[in-house]
């Protein structure tokens, strides 16, 4: 059996347990992962590819007997690194996500709501541009519900650094957006 292949010699009960765990994580985390990758600047197709790869790696790792204490942080970490590699290989800038095109697709119930939301998003968009890469990534991961410790694992930072970065980023946004 090659190193990349699935260990088909797993006992049936173990295989079922691995499948169950991977499926649960897939159902919970597929959408947040996609959102995070798209907001990092990947196209929808690339994000789908990266998510599939990440879950495939998870399945292999679980089937290989590895135990992940925090599957969510592990998956986000794998996806984040893959996204970084892809963006490096395509010679694109990593720090240019969250573009303005979103303003065109706002579909609010009333024109007043649409105008207000558009204005809010415009302010937010220009405020996001003032954030550093680390601040933006911390906020994106926080928006997907990751704890500071998990964000630290994904971005390879200390938890206290994550807390400071998030604090600084939120204050910057609040200041620029005049909420």
């Amino acid at each position, binding site marked *: 059996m090659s190193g990349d292949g699935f260990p088909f010699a797993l006992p049936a009960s173990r295989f079922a347990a691995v499948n169950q765990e991977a499926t649960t994580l897939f159902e919970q985390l597929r959408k947040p992962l*996609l*959102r995070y990758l798209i907001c990092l600047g990947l196209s929808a197709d690339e994000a789908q590819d990266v998510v599939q790869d990440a879950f495939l790696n998870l399945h292999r790792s679980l089937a290989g007997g590895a135990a992940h204490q925090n599957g969510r942080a592990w998956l986000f970490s794998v996806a984040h690194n893959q996204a970084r590699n892809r963006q490096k290989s395509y010679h694109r800038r990593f720090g240019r996500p969250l573009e303005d095109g979103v303003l065109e697709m706002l579909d609010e119930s009333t024109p007043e709501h649409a105008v207000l939301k558009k204005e809010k998003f415009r302010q937010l968009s220009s405020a996001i541009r003032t954030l550093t890469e680390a601040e933006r990534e911390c906020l994106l991961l926080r928006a997907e519900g990751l704890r500071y410790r998990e964000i630290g694992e994904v971005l390879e930072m200390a938890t206290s650094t994550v807390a400071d970065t998030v604090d600084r980023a939120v204050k910057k946004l609040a200041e620029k957006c005049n909420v």
Partner: protein
Amino acid sequence: MCEFEKKLITWMDCETEAVEALEIERHLRVCTPCSARAREYREVSRSFADYCRAIASRKNSRPLRWAAFSAAAVLAATAAMAMLMLFPRVDPLPIQRPAIAEAPAMALRTAPVNPAAPAKLIRRRLRAKRAEIPQAAWSLEPSVEIAIPIEAVFAPGAVPPGFRFAAQLSIANDGSSRGMWLRP
């Protein structure tokens, strides 16, 4: 600046110790600026999350839009093929050739009309122009005939039933159109 303001975001994210969280909550009940700040931070965090969701849904909806467009195109092509197979050929309508010898063809096209000139004078000029045109230029048999149903030209009900028009198109040797006129 209040000393609790530094801890508001970590408290909002449930990242503070339980004892400290209780302390902050107690403080927020009495400190209006801090509670306003907390509201502000919560609002901006919610807006950021909404913004991310909007971006993700926009990027994800693009392939769907293309898929819908492609599906519509395939359906249209299939429908067209089915129509062609069901109704293979439609014979052209019989064309009533108009008596084109009497048509005031070139005169209408060439005579410039001065709006200030009296109607009588204009009529005289038109007649003179018509006389100048050699008969052969417009009484030749048309080489190409096109039948256009009257319903396609005028609005429904605009033309009384049984009323017909014939159109004559004069084409020069180089293929350009020289004039077109309608006759009842």
